[in-house]
């Protein structure tokens, strides 16, 4: 595989500046250089966050002991790291990455940075169905992904149904979504108050998006689902290129816009719903991560890999803070992300011009 560098390029090259070209036989891929650098930086940040997640807590573990435990070597911290912290960290990583990509895809389809799955009702749909099922006694971890995906898809379908008027207008889409989100939240509240005390308490913890007491049971089905969705995400990364243009131009370029947008939105909704099923609604990660990533990469579209990494960094960091900030009292990670995300959402609403683009 050869990566052409700009220095040996002829003086007037048309390939958009900032892209590297990877070519192998007839296949060729454009790679955004700055996005590559940003991905490496985010990866480094993520490594630090992960290490912190393994080392910090009620008992502090030395980094070398923590790493030994991770790689299955004899260590002082086999129980604390291997049993308590690593499974939880794995789940936070997967949830964060899934939410980051989900946010990027849905914001891209709606061409609106406000249209993230945790604003327009997708995660609320997942939550409503899950809590309803919980109050009827269905609490097994294996059932959670199916419940949340059903809820997420149903909520998305509702938003689409109400927002569709012979076309999809970004502003209306977001407003309807916010309305549906509020309605679904009240459905959730209704079932919380109706249900059994103990289950209600369990559901309430789940509702705030907490990784407490969660681990491989939730992480494993999520990991398989994400793996299954990987080809779709790779397709989405390319399909996004045309969707960022206006509808007429994209159609003129031979993009089947309706299908492409439906495909992108479906992948986004599935990712958001799966993540919500695994850890409850970790609010605002899907809203924040893609915009942070795009501001760093300065790409025309929302960068999916960097969004995933940014989502993972946010979620893992939030969980570390949730555990350690008011120790021994533990917060939910969703509370920490909300503390950062809510002001950002307000700022977006105040500064956002109607009908703008993601």
């Amino acid at each position, binding site marked *: 595989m050869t990566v052409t560098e700009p220095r040996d390029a002829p003086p007037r090259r048309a*390939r*958009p*500046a*900032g892209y590297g*070209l990877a070519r192998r036989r007839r296949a060729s891929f454009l790679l955004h250089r700055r996005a590559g650098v940003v991905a490496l930086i985010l990866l480094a940040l993520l490594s630090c966050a992960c290490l912190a997640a393994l080392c910090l807590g009620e008992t502090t573990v030395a980094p070398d002991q923590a790493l030994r435990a991770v790689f299955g070597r004899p260590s002082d911290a086999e129980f604390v790291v291997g049993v308590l912290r690593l499974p939880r960290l794995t789940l936070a990583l997967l949830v964060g990455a899934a939410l980051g990509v989900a946010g990027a895809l849905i914001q891209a389809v709606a061409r609106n940075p406000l249209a993230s799955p945790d604003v327009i009702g997708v995660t609320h749909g997942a939550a409503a169905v899950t809590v309803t099922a919980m109050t009827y006694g269905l609490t097994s971890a294996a059932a959670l992904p199916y419940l949340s995906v059903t809820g997420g898809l149903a909520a998305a379908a509702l938003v689409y149904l109400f927002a569709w008027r012979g076309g999809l207008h970004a502003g209306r889409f977001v407003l309807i979504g916010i309305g549906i989100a509020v309605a679904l939240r009240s459905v959730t509240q209704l079932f919380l108050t109706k249900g059994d005390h103990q289950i209600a308490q369990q559901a309430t913890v789940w509702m705030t998006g907490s990784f407490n007491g969660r681990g491989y049971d939730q992480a494993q089905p999520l990991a398989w689902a994400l793996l299954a969705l990987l080809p779709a995400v790779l397709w989405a990364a390319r399909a996004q290129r045309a969707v*960022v243009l206006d509808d*007429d131009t994209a159609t*003129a370029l*031979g993009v089947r816009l309706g299908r492409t947008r439906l495909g992108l939105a479906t992948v986004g909704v599935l990712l958001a719903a799966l993540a919500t099923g695994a850890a409850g609604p970790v609010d605002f990660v899907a809203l924040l991560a893609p915009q942070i990533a795009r501001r760093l990469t*300065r790409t025309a579209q929302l960068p999916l890999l960097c969004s995933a990494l940014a989502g993972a960094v946010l979620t893992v960091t939030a969980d570390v803070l949730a555990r350690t900030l008011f120790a021994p009292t533990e917060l939910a990670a969703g509370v920490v992300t909300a503390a950062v995300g809510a002001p950002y959402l307000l700022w977006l609403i105040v500064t956002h011009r109607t009908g703008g683009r993601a």
Partner: protein
Amino acid sequence: MSPAETGPATARLTARALTLSYDEAARPIVDGLDLAVPDGQVTVIVGPNACGKSTTLRALGRLLKPRGGAVLLDGQELSTLPTRRIAQAIGLLPQSPTAPEAITVADLVSRGRQPHQRWWQQWSEADERAVTEAMDRTDVTALADRAVDELSGGQRQRVWIAMALAQETDLLLLDEPTTYLDIAHQVEVLNLVRHLPGRTVVAVLHDLNQAARYADHLVAMKDGRIVARGRPGEIVTAELVRDVFGLDALVVPDPVTGSPLVVPAAPTAPTLPSAREARTP
């Protein structure tokens, strides 16, 4: 101005009994329109506001599905062709395209290559050549690394045309490409469009004089129908201007090109109601 071939030119793109509307219930905007777009020529559609000229162009570029009749490309109905195949033959520049924030000129122009690329073939020698040529021809090579939203209106329009050119289609449809441009940039864009070798161009313009000057084939529309078609020198007359635009005008030869030049009649004091009523029933 290059003399256009007269006589029966071949036409890859035709419309047959085309009926168009945006709303099922409403009166059609375009009703039973037949049109053959002569190959290798510049066809310009003119007409008063709301006469259906942009709507017709959208249908020619499959952005609008016909309610009746059909648009044919090489004898095949557009609605039966894969949109990607169409995109390899027909390029279209909408009236007000929008670019994503912060996209660079070269990045935008390179997206014109979309219909020629595949998931695993994102950049080829042909892509490189087409984008280089398109940027050279539209004189935006020097702007390649600038953000599109920093450019002036004229520069931005050239970038969009470059994107459409990079698509390398035989047919190019332009919807009011000179709107929002000052007169110098209007002329610049039209000169550019006029001198695209081997391409068939269909443009919607609202300025009759520009249309008469740059068209090989002029199509005048009114109320969703074609009123006149042909070479501008043959069809642009005082009668046509009165009929289509409801304007009293003098038609004289353009002192530079000899094409018909429409000069509106002397301005009168706020029109006598009786005179206006007599003219426009």
